[in-house]
């Protein structure tokens, strides 16, 4: 065949094969949400000790003696031997379905498991076992921004789970995405809620303060994002609208005492001396806890709508307000509040931040987790010039919550647990990092 004819034939082939119709396909893998129903009996049977496991989706942290407890959101708690902060060692993993918060008194670990409050004996962390349980302590809660509820009548937990869906659309080649609908946005919405509402209805906290917070003798220390805290013989938990008290004088038999309605949007609880500071999406409640069984509401410091963990030193409270989460709001701010008059807290000064989450104070150093912007440290000796006294800014990690203990700082984020020596805050020295193993992304294809 002559070359000319060959070229002519070749020229005609594409017309026959493809025509003149553009073919564009958009492929997206998105988080989705679907309902899940669990039975209480099933959940209760799954609390057990397991071999050490990698971090996958770490939530809150808690410290008791040389042990570090890291919540694996909704799955359980990692126990880490932190005798040597430069070389933390995984000890075990306690499987606790529906867990988001924890607190430790003596050798008993209190953890939420959906509707139950579980007491786990950790006198030997490698052989931890369930020692008691307060059934039906809670009725609803939130993980990753997704709510769950419990029907005691049928013993049914109605939960939701995220999964990944791969979808392919034929598009008009202009990047236009068909509107996936409300449920798709729900995935995003849910994610951004993770930081603040990862725990179930209960939350816990102890102090993230390295100083003299007064709490229960033998209790550990939690981060500022916690919803559980211990004081005297009482465990205090906050759900989204109320403060609950449990008598833990009998360590393995927590008994419900009372609850106090706080209105919607309760997020964190922070004990300081004989006071309780409760962060809500609209303000900070201060309770007098000198009679531990009868917390008395003293005042509320109101702010614009945002998530707001709080820590306290002497007569100053430090509150971070954060946007971009289920608490709503559009501010990113650190507020310094004068609480010398507990009945009438007053704003000292507000400082613009990037995306602040958990915080901790080891006076005069205030540590602030800035989400994807890393970790910052400020000298807060001068309350009116905090922003001008930034000591350090660690970047390259996502910082969610932090605990400072003496010279050591433990920070948790989506990248894992980082530990630093902060004896010289201007020269923060990294001691170790427990990384997160990304969970296998299991996608489902839409037919």
């Amino acid at each position, binding site marked *: 065949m002559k*070359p*000319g004819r060959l*070229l*002519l034939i*070749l*020229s005609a*082939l*594409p*017309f026959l094969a*493809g*025509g*003149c*119709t*553009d*073919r*564009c*396909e*958009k*492929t*997206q*893998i*998105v*988080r989705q949400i679907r309902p899940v129903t669990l039975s209480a009996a099933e959940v209760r049977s799954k609390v057990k000790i397991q071999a050490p496991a990698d971090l996958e989706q770490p939530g809150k942290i808690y410290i008791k003696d040389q042990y570090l407890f890291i919540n694996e959101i909704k799955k359980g708690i990692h126990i880490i031997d932190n005798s040597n902060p430069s070389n933390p060692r995984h000890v075990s993993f306690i499987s606790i379905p529906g867990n988001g918060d924890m607190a430790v008194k003596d050798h008993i670990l209190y953890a939420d498991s959906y509707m139950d409050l579980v007491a786990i004996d950790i006198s030997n962390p490698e052989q931890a076992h369930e020692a008691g349980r307060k059934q039906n302590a809670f009725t609803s809660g939130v993980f990753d921004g997704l709510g769950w509820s419990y029907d005691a009548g049928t013993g049914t937990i109605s939960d939701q789970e995220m999964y*990944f869906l791969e*979808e392919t*659309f*034929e*598009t*008009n*080649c*202009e*990047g236009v*995405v*068909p509107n*996936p*609908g409300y449920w798709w946005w729900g*995935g*995003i919405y*849910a*994610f*951004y809620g993770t930081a603040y509402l990862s725990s179930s209805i209960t939350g816990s906290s102890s102090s993230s303060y390295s100083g003299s917070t007064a709490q229960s003798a033998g209790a550990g220390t939690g981060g500022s994002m916690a919803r559980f805290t211990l004081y005297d013989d009482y465990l205090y938990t906050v759900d989204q609208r109320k403060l609950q008290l449990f008598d833990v004088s009998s360590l393995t038999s927590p008994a419900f005492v009372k609850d106090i309605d706080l209105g919607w949007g309760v997020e964190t609880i922070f004990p300081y001396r004989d006071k309780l500071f409760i962060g809500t999406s609209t303000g900070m409640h201060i309770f007098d806890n000198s009679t531990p069984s009868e917390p008395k509401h003293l005042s509320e410091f109101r702010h614009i709508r945002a998530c707001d963990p709080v820590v306290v030193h002497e007569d100053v409270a430090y509150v971070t307000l954060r946007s971009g989460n289920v608490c709503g709001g559009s501010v990113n701010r650190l507020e310094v509040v004068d609480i010398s008059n507990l009945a009438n807290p007053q704003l000292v000064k507000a400082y613009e931040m990037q995306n602040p989450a958990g915080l901790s104070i080891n006076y005069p150093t205030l540590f602030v987790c800035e989400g994807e912007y890393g970790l910052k440290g400020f000298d807060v000796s001068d309350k009116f010039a905090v922003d001008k006294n930034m000591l350090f800014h660690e970047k390259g990690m996502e910082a969610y919550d932090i605990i400072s203990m003496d010279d050591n700082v433990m920070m948790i984020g989506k990248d894992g647990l980082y530990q630093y020596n902060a004896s010289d805050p201007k020269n923060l020295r990294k001691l170790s990092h427990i990384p997160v193993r990304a969970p296998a*992304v299991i996608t489902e294809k839409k037919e």
Partner: protein
Amino acid sequence: MRTLILGLVLCCFSGAQLSAQGFLEGRPFTNHTEVGGLFGNVEYVTNPYGTPKTYGRQNKTNLTIQTFNGLMLTSRLAGGVTLGVDWFNDALINPIALGARYDLISRYNARLFGTLDAGYGFTWFYKNLNGNKLNGGLMLNPGIGWRLGKPGNAGFTIAITYKRQEAIMKMPVDRAILRQEEARQYNRLAVRVGIVF
């Protein structure tokens, strides 16, 4: 891939220059510059969540300009490099290709010729918006045309070709969207007029 193709094109181009002392020496230079339209349509889903899904169709017309620079390898065949610019909707693509022009019938003032360009479309001059990132892709452009003018002189051309251009638009991701990208395959009827000498 695109680096490889660009390298091949540049090698050929520079090789042609270097070889000008040898095989190509004395061979006449030819230029063929064209402007025209890219015509086609697209069918796409308008509501992927409906039962059944609903679809729509849009006609597409875009501007294309290209210039072929080469040497007459034989009395009928020219080989060289084609540079162009195609303004698709939401894409500005600059193809760089190896090209050939072959006179199928060369005895008359109105002559039929074949054209073939194959290369890679780059997106250097496309301004990405909203965190999107457009990546280019392979390009194939065969066709036929008519040249009006006396043999050996400059002439006018009209060409009808099929143009296939691939591209990928990558959209931003976050924790709720692990991946999103649009694989594009433009299949167009390209009608161009031009001048050749």
